[in-house]
């Protein structure tokens, strides 16, 4: 039975007191206020839980992108603080979210969270850099909507593992047909656009933030 169509209340003019708009809408008013209060309560109750869900989702990845402590002795916990770093390059200011990971206040590495345009839609990645920001320690794809089965392979370990250990100074190139060396990355067969998109994002991030991070690292390290 199709939903009944909302009929227009063409009340004939003689029903005066019913015509006052507020009187008719009192139920809507009451409901709106009651629901406003209910939702505010839900917000205060669940708000923090959701916030740290969001934060954990990225922070839980950070330890994997930070090189293990060279001396196994220091088993201290990693502290991570996040700040936004606006960078203006080529007439466009881009804002990067930088996670600075330090182990008992000795810089352990950087993780940059950045999003770029992929083949179908946005790709958001976490890029791990060594303390001196000269070697890429790893890459993790947070969010992508590439074609499942093809482009979606950029999120899987074998492909994104290639970035670990690559030098950060030279821009990376994507090549087809395997045999990548130095600063080359193997493209996923049938998804070169997605592979190239991720590499472009990495190159652009490196070009924008590398020197800033290096100077920060220089300053912070004793």
């Amino acid at each position, binding site marked *: 039975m199709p939903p009944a169509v909302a009929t227009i209340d063409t009340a004939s003019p003689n029903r005066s007191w019913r015509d006052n708009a507020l009187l008719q809408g009192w139920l809507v008013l009451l409901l709106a206020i009651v629901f406003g209060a209910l939702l505010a309560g839900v917000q205060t109750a669940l708000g923090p839980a959701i916030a740290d869900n969001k934060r954990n989702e990225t922070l839980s990845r950070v330890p994997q992108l930070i090189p293990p402590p060279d001396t196994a002795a220091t088993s201290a916990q990693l502290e991570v603080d996040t700040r936004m770093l606006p960078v203006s390059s080529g007439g466009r200011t881009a804002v990067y979210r930088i996670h600075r990971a330090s182990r008992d206040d000795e810089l352990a590495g950087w993780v940059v969270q950045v999003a*770029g345009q992929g083949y*179908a839609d946005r790709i958001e990645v976490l890029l791990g850099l060594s303390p001196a920001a000269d070697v890429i320690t790893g890459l993790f794809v947070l969010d992508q909507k590439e074609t499942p089965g093809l482009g979606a392979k950029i999120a899987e370990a074998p492909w994104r593992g290639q970035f670990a250990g690559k030098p950060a100074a030279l821009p990376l190139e994507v090549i087809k047909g395997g045999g990548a060396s130095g600063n080359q990355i193997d493209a996923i067969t049938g998804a070169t656009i997605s592979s190239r998109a991720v590499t472009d994002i990495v190159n652009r991030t490196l070009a924008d933030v590398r020197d800033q991070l290096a100077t920060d690292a220089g300053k912070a390290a004793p």
Partner: protein
Amino acid sequence: MTYLIDILLIALGAALINNFIFYYFVGICPFIGVSRRVEMAFGMGCAVTFVMTIAAAISWTMTRFVLMPGAPLTQWIAGWWLDPQTAAGVDLSILSYIVYIFAIAASVQFVEMYLRRFFPLLYRSFGVFLPLITTNCAILFACLTIMSRLVGVDDPAARWDLGQALVLAIFGGLGFTLAIVIMAGIREELEACDVPTPFRGAPIALIVGGILAMAFMGFTGVDNGLKTALTPPAVVAQAPPTEPPSGAPTP
């Protein structure tokens, strides 16, 4: 210049590439239900585009100034009781769904009364669709996309302004109309073909819709290619040669 490219990309994306029906699956109920005749479908399409533009305008203003976590109006009012620091913690984004649906339902009711009064002929042709539009997913989806472009983006420059929001609404509506009119055309021809009895009506419409979705899938990646083509070479020249062309952050 890049603002215009942004607008073009949003327009193209909403109308063809990420078509509301074939890519995001919103607005399927009218797509199956109302697309029996082309003029009915076109009427429905225009009504949806019209109401979607109004809803987009209302939802952008409400989100930008009241519902966003750092919305200026909320901060200003909260500032009366709280010191600015904690006032930043006040965030009404939980009200967004209610505000959008309230705005949609009210604007549909308002448009219906307005049409009934000033354009009786227009009302007779597609007035009957208006109550159906309140339960149409496409309009709420447009508001949600606008919200995600305002709230979900942490880089203030990439937030959408009213122009971009309206462009998304108008071209999303046109994409919806295009899809539903194509479907209506096909279904009118379908009347004359002998479809096996269990597949008559909705099932055959869905299968035809699947084929149309495949055709529309051919558009994926067009906006990406267009962006790299349209990025003015001047931007590339300044950057040091080794650095790849820095495309504008995603629309």
